[in-house]
């Protein structure tokens, strides 16, 4: 039996939820006040995922030297740092449109890195 403690993010209440696992399968979920807490806890314990946001360098930009980017969907939490590593040293050239793909299928997650800002070219 293994117990995992986590804080629900569904509302400001922030219930402390205890998930009990046996051989990687969930035996019980306790401490949540509402059903949303249980749904969150089950997902969080078995396959936690996050959206990662960062920046890459953009050349010929009319404004900043940083282009904000994000994963176009959630990726496994365990791949956050390899995703950050993949973004290191990436340089793009203006103009860039919001939604442009910067890296396809980052770290084999099936999720693309896309631009989150439109940057015009410095003329």
């Amino acid at each position: 039996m293994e117990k995992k403690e986590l804080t629900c993010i569904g509302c400001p209440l922030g219930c402390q939820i205890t998930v009990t696992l046996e051989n990687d399968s969930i035996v019980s979920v306790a401490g949540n006040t509402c059903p949303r807490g249980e749904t969150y806890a089950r997902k969080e314990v078995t396959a936690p995922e996050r959206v990662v946001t960062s920046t890459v360098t953009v050349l010929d930009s009319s404004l900043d030297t940083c282009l904000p980017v994000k994963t176009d969907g959630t990726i496994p939490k365990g791949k956050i740092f390899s995703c950050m590593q993949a973004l290191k040293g990436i340089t793009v050239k203006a103009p860039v449109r919001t939604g442009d793909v910067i890296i396809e299928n980052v770290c084999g997650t099936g999720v693309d890195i896309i631009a989150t800002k439109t940057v015009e070219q410095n003329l």
Partner: protein
Amino acid sequence: MRSENTIVIIGGGPAGLAAAISAKKNGAENILILERDRELGGILNQCIHNGFGLHTFKEELTGPEYAGRFIEEVKALGIPYKLNTMVLDISPDKTVTAMNSEDGLFEIKAGAVILCMGCRERPRGALSIPGTRPSGIYSAGTAQRLMNREGFMPGKIVVILGSGDIGLIMARRLTLEGAEVKAVAELMPYSGGLKRNIVQCLDDYGIPLLLSHTVTDIRGKDRVESVVISEVGPDGSPVPGTGKEYECDTLLLSVGLLPENELSKAAGVKLGSTGGPVVNESLETGIPGVFACGNVLHVHDLVDYVSEEAANAGRHAAKYVEGLSRGEAAKTAGQRTVDVVPENGVRYTVPVTVRPDRMDEELTIRFRVANVYKNIFVSVYLGEERVQHRKRPVVAPGEMEQVTIKRQDLLDRPDVKKITIRLEEE
């Protein structure tokens, strides 16, 4: 420049953009946004994390994406704006004085003004932290700008004072870029940030949140070398002998936001308990035709609420200039005004007064509570009569609350002069 029916919007951040779009859609023909930065979008441009727009667009956008949607709409509607333009003064008669390098110094005699200047971060000087004055001490927002727009790392080993949302977001951002965040210290026994940020920015990376702790010393001559974090007693002052030294090269301060009031003060706008202007149901300040919305009015937790509030301000401003063009002076004398009074754990309300004749069928009153309360009732009284009594499992200072008032309820009770919003145990 003389244009008696122009709505001048001070600031092109989320509030200014939404106010401009709404004013335009409600029939205002002459609108001008004045923005001091070199692009529209305000602080959202440096908030590259996601979580914006869940209410407005039913999806989680990053700050630049959220701003981008409003900027596109402003452009599509052909609303004029001036960038790199600093507003220097607003006079009580709504003459806006501004300058930029193209037009030089110029004046606009505005029909209406919408204040959308946003907030500033509370600086170190407002905190009275003892110690030296080395480099390496940043407000969290400054560090955010350096990292997300200019591409600089503010430091390698970091301590953060204050657990407001910007501080939490920066703890994660710094960690992802390779810095070590040793701790987040919070003076209060609870965090001022959203629960989701505590989990996804601190817990995810094993960064400790030290509640009821504060920085009691900053050491280092040229660069921060360490800070001392001490426990704080129930009276809010540090407990002697509890200090622990944390070696670090950087200290971030995320200790609150203050509405930017200089222009409002110069105009003679009365300020209230939100830290920003006192407004009525139309988000109009004490000066007829001067409106306020967004973080300059009160600090919001979600940008969606800023956009919603600003849209209302824009609509009311459009109505105001329409009245002007019909030769209607602002008729306020003799009109019934009902005060909105925060009590018993409610820190402030927006608006502060309501004119039933002018209000919409329903009016949202937003407020913040003074502490964390569990299993509490939010009650609304019209005069002495309790008309709403809603149980809440939890309310916290970090999250904005709201109640809705019906116009008909006020019209049905002509003697009521006061709406009270209070927290009650039962």
